[in-house]
C-alpha cells in the first residue's frame, strides 16, 4: 500500500473509533445505572482495538490462511474500506 492509501485508511479507522465513542458516551449518560442492558455490546467493543492501539502490522495487513506468511495486505480484502476486521486469530 502507498503512504497515502495508508493515511486514508487510518482516517477511516479513526472515524469508526469516533462513531463507537459517540455511541457509548451517549448510552452511558442516558442509562447511568442500567449498564446491564448493553453489557453484551460493551463486552464486544471492549475487545475492539482503537486505531491508536493497533500495531502497523494489524492496521495494514490481515490474516489469510492461504497466503504465505498467513498475512495479506488489507487492500486485497473485499470491501476493505467498509469492513472492520481488527482482531486477528491469536499468534497470527
Amino acid at each position: 500500500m502507498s503512504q497515502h492509501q495508508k493515511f486514508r485508511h487510518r482516517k477511516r479507522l479513526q472515524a469508526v473509533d469516533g462513531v463507537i465513542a459517540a455511541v457509548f458516551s451517549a448510552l452511558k449518560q442516558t442509562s447511568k445505572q442500567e449498564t446491564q442492558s448493553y453489557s453484551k455490546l460493551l463486552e464486544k467493543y471492549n475487545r475492539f482495538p482503537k486505531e491508536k492501539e493497533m500495531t502497523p502490522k494489524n492496521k495494514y495487513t490481515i490474516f489469510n490462511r492461504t497466503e504465505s506468511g498467513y498475512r495479506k495486505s488489507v487492500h486485497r480484502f473485499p470491501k476493505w474500506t467498509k469492513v472492520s476486521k481488527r482482531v486477528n486469530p491469536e499468534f497470527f
Partner: protein
Amino acid sequence: MSFYRIQLKRSTIALPQAIKDTVSKLGLGKTGSVSYREVSPISAGMILKVKELVEVKVVDQALSKSQERALRKSDPGFVVEKQ
C-alpha cells in the same frame, strides 16, 4: 432526552443485505441522508452494525426534515422586508 443524529456517509451498494436492511431501518436512504434515533441500547446496536458507513453526533433535540433542510440553505445575502 438525547438523540443520535445519524448521517449516511458511505453507500450501501454491493454490501450484504443485512447491512442494507439495518441502514434502511435506521431511516436512512441515499448517502448524505440524516435521521434521528433516541439513545437506547437498540439504536446503539444498530448504529454499531453499520459504523463504517455513518457519522454519528449526539444532540438534545431531533430536527424535522424541513429544519434539516433550512440548516443546509446558504445565506442569500439579502433580507426581504416587504412583498
